[in-house]
């Protein structure tokens, strides 16, 4: 498990770096998809099977296809312009990012506060998964405890659809 995790972790990080550094948007998108696949694997390793499936279906399957579709539509895959900023920016941004990573790692490595710590325990999630099934373990709280946010999410998606149509239309 650990080995698998490390394998996918290294793969995810390198794909992510390639995503950020590729000049061609299509290449970036492909590498991002690779990153998403790695992440989906890690989710599965972490016991979040449904999320792993959703990751592939929605992110890799739907959202990234949309990105590529737009890149193709605007014909950006062939004569793309160089868009990476100068060295100064690279250094500054890289430094800042590393500082953020270090700070995050530092925050995570310390003694975690109770809500993030050992409240439910691993047995609980495994037990629930055994009890309700892979989907049910998410679906039941989603449709009971998180009913209202779910409905809002639905409204948000509807608004996004309408907004996207209005924005992308040639003539309103």
């Amino acid at each position, binding site marked *: 498990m650990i080995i698998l995790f490390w394998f996918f972790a290294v793969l995810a990080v390198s794909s992510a770096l390639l995503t950020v550094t590729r000049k061609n948007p299509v290449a970036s998108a492909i590498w991002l998809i690779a*990153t998403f696949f790695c992440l989906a694997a890690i989710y599965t390793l972490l016991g979040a099977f449904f999320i792993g499936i959703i990751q592939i279906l929605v992110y890799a399957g739907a959202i990234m296809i949309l990105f590529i579709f737009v890149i193709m539509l605007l014909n950006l895959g062939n004569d793309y312009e160089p868009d990476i900023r100068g060295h100064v920016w690279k250094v500054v941004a890289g430094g800042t990012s590393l500082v953020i990573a270090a700070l995050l790692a530092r925050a995570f490595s310390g003694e975690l506060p109770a809500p993030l710590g050992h409240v439910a325990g691993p047995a609980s999630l495994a037990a629930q998964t055994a009890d309700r099934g892979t989907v049910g373990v998410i679906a039941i709280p989603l449709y009971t405890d998180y009913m209202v946010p779910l409905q809002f999410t639905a409204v948000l998606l509807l608004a996004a659809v309408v907004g996207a149509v209005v924005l992308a239309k040639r003539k309103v």
Partner: protein
Amino acid sequence: MQQIPLEQALGLSALLFAIGAFGVVIRRNAIILFMCIELMLNAVNLAFVAFSPRSGVQGQVFVFFVIAVAAAEAAVGLAIIISVFRHKESVDIKNFSLLRW
């Protein structure tokens, strides 16, 4: 079954987030910018999922919402890019400073 240590998963999440942030700052292509943002969102998702074996299923529920919002964001953001591209013939955000002084 041996558990993946929480610290390592979170460390990966931090690293991915930093990479995404780095990309947001150095790239000017609006589409790649969006992709970097998606990367950062996924880093956060990873943190949520990493906590869920210990803290319960709520983390996964939030991941679900994040994915939904990301989908909406991508749809609207890409629509805006298309709309702007029609006027500017470019997706380089240096040309997008429409509301500047």
